């Protein structure tokens, strides 16, 4: 798809018949077999495929779990325990689904950081990046609502706290919260609409994923050098090269996934969620799932009023802003060079940003008191400074390293005297 014309040639009669009516085999062939990918992609680029398979895994386990789940406040907790105890392999399905959500976020964070490191959001891939941020937002909504369904203590109180954010907005805040809850407090209507939406959103994610992949196949993938594909020697066909590499990475990722499912299934969850929801007993510390902790830390970091904005609204705006800012990244980065490989300063600030995000995650799990608040404020400040100051300013003042002329040149410089470059792309044809 990327620029070039379709190379699909239907060989048998039935293929020709289908191709003339609905060229689906052609689409698949062009997208996943002949599609040219840069030859220098490293393993950081395998997480797109991993995310796709995690989405499929979540949908499959989720559909079966929904067959056994009851979305009523009086039944939900016990129905989940019924799955754990009495449904055949129910424990496996539920642990796959719960840990699958965590693994989905592990993969998406690596995928996003990879994009930030290699400047994957820069022109002409702005829409590709924005679609990715939309997927991430949908994932967050889906995960949040899914966590409410077992109707444990953290489900209930997490839902109470998170929907409470909206009340910070003047005038429209309360109506929005009541619409989300279906009432004035988290209760049966909340659980029912969350279940309905939790089932709906993954299919919306799948829809946006199609657009994301479509946009990717129009612009082509970036690569660690950040230099666009210039000639045929810069690329290899998707199959077998990317398929087998993605496949290997997927199996490795499954090892991590299986480790948590079978040996540490409750490590990433909160013990309080094994206590049935009780609207009269507030847990000592209400904490969201680990993948929301950095945002939770930023929410609680705003402990002061800013002019007419009180600290509550300030916190909520900071939290929403921390995600909204991602939409602007393609225009905040002023650098002409895409990849951090050739930007020594950006590389430094990028890794500080990674450390900052991890620190924020840890702070989100701490009580908001004493020195943790100050630390969270400093970490929040760096989070925004990275996007709003460092990204635009650095692009203007940084002197990048010399860029290679092409992907092929970069690759050959790396593996001097290694394999024979010429005919490399012809290899798959000869291998059949």
């Amino acid at each position, binding site marked *: 798809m990327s620029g070039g014309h379709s190379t699909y040639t239907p060989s048998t009669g039935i293929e020709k018949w289908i191709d003339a009516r609905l060229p689906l085999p052609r689409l698949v062939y062009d997208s996943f077999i002949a599609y040219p990918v840069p030859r220098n992609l490293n393993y950081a680029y395998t997480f797109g495929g991993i995310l796709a398979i995690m989405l499929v895994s979540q949908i499959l386990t989720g559909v079966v779990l929904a067959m056994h789940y009851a979305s009523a406040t009086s039944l939900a907790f016990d129905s989940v*325990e019924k799955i754990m105890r009495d449904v055949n392999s129910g*424990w496996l399905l539920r642990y796959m689904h719960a840990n699958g959500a965590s693994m989905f976020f592990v993969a998406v964070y690596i995928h996003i950081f990879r994009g930030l490191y290699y400047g994957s959001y820069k022109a002409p891939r702005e829409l590709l990046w924005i679609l990715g941020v939309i997927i991430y937002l949908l994932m967050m909504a889906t995960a949040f609502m899914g966590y409410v369904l077992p109707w444990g203590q953290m489900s209930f109180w997490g839902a109470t706290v998170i929907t409470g954010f909206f009340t910070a907005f003047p005038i429209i805040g309360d109506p929005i919260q009541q619409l989300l809850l279906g009432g004035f407090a988290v209760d049966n209507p909340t659980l029912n609409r969350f279940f309905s939406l939790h089932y709906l959103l993954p299919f919306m994610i799948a829809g946006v994923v199609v657009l994301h992949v479509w946009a990717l196949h129009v612009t082509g993938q970036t690569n660690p050098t950040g230099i666009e594909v210039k000639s045929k020697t810069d690329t290899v066909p998707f199959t077998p090269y990317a398929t087998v590499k993605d496949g290997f990475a997927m*199996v490795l990722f499954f090892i991590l996934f*299986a480790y948590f499912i079978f040996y*540490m299934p409750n490590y990433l969850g909160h013990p309080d969620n094994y206590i049935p929801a009780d609207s009269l007993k507030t847990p000592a510390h209400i904490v969201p799932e680990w993948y929301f902790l950095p945002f939770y830390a930023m929410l609680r970091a705003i402990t002061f009023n800013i002019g007419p904005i009180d600290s509550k609204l300030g916190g909520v705006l900071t939290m929403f802003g921390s995600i909204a800012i991602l939409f602007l990244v393609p225009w905040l980065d002023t650098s002409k060079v895409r990849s951090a490989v050739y930007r020594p300063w950006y590389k430094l600030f990028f890794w500080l940003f990674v450390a900052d995000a991890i620190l924020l995650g840890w702070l989100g799990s701490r009580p908001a008191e*004493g*020195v943790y608040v100050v630390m969270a404020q400093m970490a929040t400040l760096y989070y925004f400074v990275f996007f709003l100051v460092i990204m635009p300013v650095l692009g203007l003042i940084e002197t990048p390293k010399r860029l290679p002329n092409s992907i092929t040149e970069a690759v050959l410089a790396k593996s001097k005297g290694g394999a*024979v470059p010429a005919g490399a792309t012809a290899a798959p044809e000869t291998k059949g």
Partner: protein
Amino acid sequence: MKTILTGLATLGFGVMLTVGGALAQEQHSEAEPTHFPIEKPHQESWSFAGPFGTYDKGQLQRGLKVYKEVCSSCHSMKLVAFRSLEELGYTEDQVKALAAEYDIQDGPNADGEMFTRKGIPTDYFPSPFPNDAAAAASNGGAAPPDFSLIAKARAVERGFPTFIFDIFTQYAEAGPDYIHALLTGYDHTPPEGMEIPEGTHYNPYFIAGKSLAMPKPIDDGQVTYDDGSPETLDQYSRDVSAFLMWAAEPHLEARKRTGFRVMVFLVLFAGLVYLVKRRVWANVAH
């Protein structure tokens, strides 16, 4: 310049962490602690820990005996059915006999009357109180928690950096460790100056405060064991903790067994896919 900046940044983070740690430790008064539990539970050794862990059936049977004779007078276990006790090594007939020891309220019958009958294996452990309000009323205002999931519903925070090491050591026994620590943690004297509220009992291992409403529930020699195991508080606590872990996670053995097969398969498969990958990419510099 770059090294200076990296150094400064590392220093900044380092200072933040140390100051944070130091301040978090501060304001720790012996008499009025603000963080609970006061003492962290000891890490016990459990037969069901680790990748090949299995339940010790003898221990589970002893733990069941402790639960039946001691805990069950206040604590329900609503989610555990008698039929599942076969996993503890009992025969079908033994389970039937055990279920029949309980009176279960059933009904309404054809006349619209509720009636009481003997328990059958498909029944669940009956609760000691007719409802939560009654349970709360008989226990000073707070209903004793249900025990079906207690071993997964209680875990003392491990703190940094232990929680990272736990991933590699597969530490997943915080629940039973906590239960054991709580049951054996009653006989400590509170530090001087600490006020213990009326009707509560000091226990430095209690997760939510300095004292709890439950008095010391069990002591040496209270339950008779017929397999020669020591009839001590420590042994009772150990056995009932293991039993409660089973009650909370009855499929633990199947999970770990399946896990081993899955891991072996995935590792071998990864090796094969890697070889294919190397072969495919052999002629392409990348």
